[in-house]
């Protein structure tokens, strides 16, 4: 089955075939044989063409994969997504980008803007205090604030939706 692997500006087209507990990966130039054995929940010992890796897939952030201790941003798009994109509908990024959730549990100490405000990418949105440090969260995209789901002084769990920009 066709997939696209994206990391930053870099993109690879591949074909995945499962076969006897292994994955055959075909690219334009090569055919690779990958065997991933889970050693702890979300952590795999991977041998691909006799190269050995430790790969963590359940890190913070859905699109983060850790390879030999190095975290990389990764997007794996299957045929459905590829087809959607061909139709000009790059849903995944849009929806993800506009919804800002708490990446850490903590205390919301300040919200800088209100619903209806126009935001430029990089504008500070709110402050969240955790582990004795104040963290300023900036807007990942430009747009209008559609919704603010928390108030100042509120303690939030990881993953709580904070602000939606549309």
């Amino acid at each position, binding site marked *: 089955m066709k997939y696209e692997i994206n990391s930053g500006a870099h993109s690879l087209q591949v074909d995945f075939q499962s076969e006897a507990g292994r994955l055959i990966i075909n690219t334009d130039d090569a055919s690779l044989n990958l065997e991933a054995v889970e050693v702890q929940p979300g952590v*795999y010992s991977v041998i*691909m063409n006799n*190269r050995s890796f430790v790969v963590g897939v359940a890190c913070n952030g859905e699109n983060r994969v850790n390879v030999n*201790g190095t975290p990389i941003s*990764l997007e*794996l798009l299957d045929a459905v997504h590829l087809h*959607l994109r061909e139709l000009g509908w790059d849903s995944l990024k849009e929806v993800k980008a506009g919804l800002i959730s708490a990446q*850490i549990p903590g205390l919301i100490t300040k919200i800088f803007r209100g619903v209806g405000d126009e935001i430029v990418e990089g504008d500070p949105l709110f402050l969240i205090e955790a582990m004795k440090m104040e963290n300023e969260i900036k807007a990942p995209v430009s747009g209008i604030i559609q919704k603010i789901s928390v108030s100042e002084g509120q303690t939030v769990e990881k993953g709580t939706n904070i602000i939606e920009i549309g």
Partner: protein
Amino acid sequence: MFKKILIANRGEIALRVMRTCREMGIEVVAVYSAADRTAPHVLFADEAYFIGSAASSDSYLKYEKILEVAQASHSDAIHPGYGFLSENTEFAQKVSEAGIVFIGPPADAIKTMGDKTMARQSMLLTDVPVVPGTEDPIEDVEKALSVAKEIGFPVLIKAAGGGGGKGMRIVDSAEAFESAVGKAQRESQSAFGDGRVYIEKYLEEPHHIEFQVIADTHGNVIHLNERECSIQRRYQKVIEESPSPFIHAELREQMGKAAVETARSCNYVGAGTVEFLVDKYKHFYFLEMNTRLQVEHPVTEMVTGIDLVAEQIRIAEGKPLSLKQSDVSVSGHAVECRIYAEDAANDFVPSTGTISMLQIPDGPGTRFDGAIRQGMEVTPYYDPMLGKLICWAKDRDSALNRSERALREFYIGGIETTIQFCRSVIGHPQFRQGPYDTHFYALHKEELHTELSTATDEVMLVAGGTLHTHQDRMKHSSQKAGAGESSRSNWVSAQMGRQKQ
């Protein structure tokens, strides 16, 4: 001789202190908050007492409660570690009044050195050079401006009541001066409850180099050479090493003498650190003295073979130092990397969660001072430092090679850490070459972070292939359990459904 010591701290420094206590045959008492019932320092201790809820102000900073525990447990002494109550004059005093030994300097020394302007004033009475600047906190902005003009711009505005970069401003011109002072005062007030700021000459290409000193109650004071701490971000140290690749033998001797003089000037007793700034011309200036054990103390232990916590305890017991200045010899080179639960690729935002897999590096010349274990939860309540990796080898190059090897072998699953960031710094040609100054991070920020976000084809294929395998497995296991597809796929279906409508 102490029989039992209470450690008024948590995390890696609590374990560090407990290790030496146990080696000296001393029992260790832990205190813990509600968030720390199964924290490593509790599991490690001989005794453990609950002292309050998760917030530090209700537990690790609540010194009446800690003092009660010390008395209930018949502890002979209290070791405060660093942070929390370690530089709290009142606590030190109350402990002594209760007939318990405070393992640290006398309250007076903490007081003198804890206040930066007071420390400056006290140092101006010695031969130790001090960065030119105001002697008193700024009250009259006009007067301060004339001092600034005299010193010459750029100048630095700094908080008198605390560190860590809060309340700090670099001012390039007379025009920007007044507004910067106001901002620094407000920031300082909110951070330390003390709005006083002072001004200093802004040094060119400054190196942050500190000297470890130890002093006993018999008037002996020696230094244990320097630590180079110029790799900082957010004004926090990231990587420290000893010896410094910047200073030479003669300068080392001068600075060492100045450090000893500094300790003598405030009748210091115990382990302390004298911080200097050294500019590009190799002029050095007293910056501040930290009246406690420093996070980066293992670097000194590795090159001198001296156990600093053991010295602290011996000194607190009233014993003389176990060695003279002439006995101090440095062998090889040591490098410390601080491992934080932070997402370096995302502006160092703290990362919390459960440690799903843990592989701590080990082997020749490799030490990890930490307080983590596989299956443990990293909570948002305290300092995000998970521990420190210290590597020793016969020379700087080998020590850096060893650090790279150890960082490569370090695996912490389930949370984000600064392991990879430390690898980027240690692998950076400018760092490799040394010397570097405190501007290193700002100067090379982009390269350091670019490396974090670039992956080779091979790594992308491995990552993609593994993610696919994982998602496939999750799908099958959830199908078996009677559920539908994976949550990701569900989300896609939902989106498609919406589009159709």
